[in-house]
């Protein structure tokens, strides 16, 4: 039995978009913690750590996200972990984000001039203080805009979790399409919702970038 595509469906799609946003936020927080480790390992003065981190980044950036999602979806049950699409999706996306955030933050750390480290050392600060009080505040300012830019990328990437059955905006569109058989208006609405979220994030990122340039 099919029914017409109505305003109630639009509301349902907007509600489903909350899960898209929630998933992206979980992934950026989870990926952020791990990404910090990746970034620090990449710049650490110990070769094996550099190799470990760049190997991880190459592995994640060299394989399709869809493959990573499927490996988690089918792999977690083998370790007796309850296979909820929500768990698989948030774990896979966090590991995925960690690689990208790690690279963004490594770039930000390295873009702080060598002389800043040296100046801090000349003031008698130990390594931890040099990083914490001198380099990090500058690196964070540089990294904010590309990090928000990546969040926009991540919102789009969450659509792939529909294929392992996580109900977010894209999966919700599939469900409504099955009921209304009106694919064009349904997917069109979904596209508009994605557009609103991503376009705002893109604008925010551009504004932050201008501001961080103005401040220097």
């Amino acid at each position, binding site marked *: 039995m099919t029914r017409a595509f109505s305003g109630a469906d639009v509301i349902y799609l907007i509600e489903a978009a909350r899960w898209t946003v929630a998933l992206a936020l979980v992934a950026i927080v989870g990926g952020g913690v791990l990404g910090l480790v990746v970034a620090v390992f990449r710049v650490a003065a110990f070769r094996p750590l550099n190799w470990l981190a760049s190997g991880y980044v*190459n*592995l994640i*950036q*060299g*394989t*399709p*996200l*869809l*493959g*990573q999602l*499927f*490996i988690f979806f*089918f*792999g977690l049950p*083998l*370790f*007796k972990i309850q296979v909820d699409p929500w768990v698989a999706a948030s774990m896979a996306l966090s590991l995925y984000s960690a690689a990208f955030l790690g690279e963004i933050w490594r770039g930000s750390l390295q873009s702080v001039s060598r002389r800043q480290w040296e100046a801090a050392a000349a003031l008698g600060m130990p390594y931890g203080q040099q990083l914490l009080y001198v380099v990090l505040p500058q690196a964070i300012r540089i990294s904010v805009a590309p990090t928000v830019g990546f969040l*926009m990328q991540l919102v*789009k*990437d969450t*659509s*792939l979790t*529909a*294929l392992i059955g996580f109900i977010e905006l*894209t999966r919700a*569109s*599939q469900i409504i*399409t099955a009921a209304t058989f*009106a*694919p*064009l208006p349904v*997917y*069109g609405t*979904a*596209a508009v919702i*994605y*557009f609103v979220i*991503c*376009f705002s994030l*893109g604008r925010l990122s551009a504004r932050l970038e201008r501001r961080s340039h103005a401040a220097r």
Partner: protein
Amino acid sequence: MSYNFRFSALEPYAGEIVKGVFLTLQLSLITMVIGLAIGLFVALGSTSPLRSLRVPVRIYVEAIRNTPLLVQLFIVFFGLPSLGVRFDANMAAVIGLSVNVGAYCGEILRAGFESIRPSQIEAGRALGMTAGQTFRNVVLFQAVKAIYPALTSQFVLLLLATSVVSSIGATELFHQAAFIDSRTYRSFEAYTLVTLAYLGMTLVIRAMFSAIYWLVFVRRPRA
């Protein structure tokens, strides 16, 4: 953990995976070529002095860059038939991917054009080169050098993104994983193997691209 990993169960399907690798490479190459052609129009359109040309091109680029590829594919494959435009899955995949990558290529090419300063062209002309010589020896070489790294990483991103078209049933490498999974019930092994096949492809392609960059731009035989 009591699960027995049996990658050997996939052995009879080695041929399917090799076939999938070639289908994926073929799909990536075709869509990259079409995407570059679209990108050329986008780059020319978005730098055009004509507003009536600039605005629609910007709308196209923003619409593509702010929506997920998966939704774009669903619109092409499931949505357009209700307007009477019908494609088979492989055709829809080529169209969806090309339209998607065209927007990104357009941005890269535009940046490439803008990176050439007019003084470079004037300098070439002042040295007595014809307009054609200036274009070939001064503009083209520098423009290609400027956009080469971005284009190659765009190609790798495209190669990875082609896995998404398996969701509308187009035949490529990821689709082969689903097929093998359905025959062997070895989901984890099948998807792991195929994902690693993508890793192999991207590593080889990246190495190839940087070798070409070194041969053409770093060694500069004709400098």
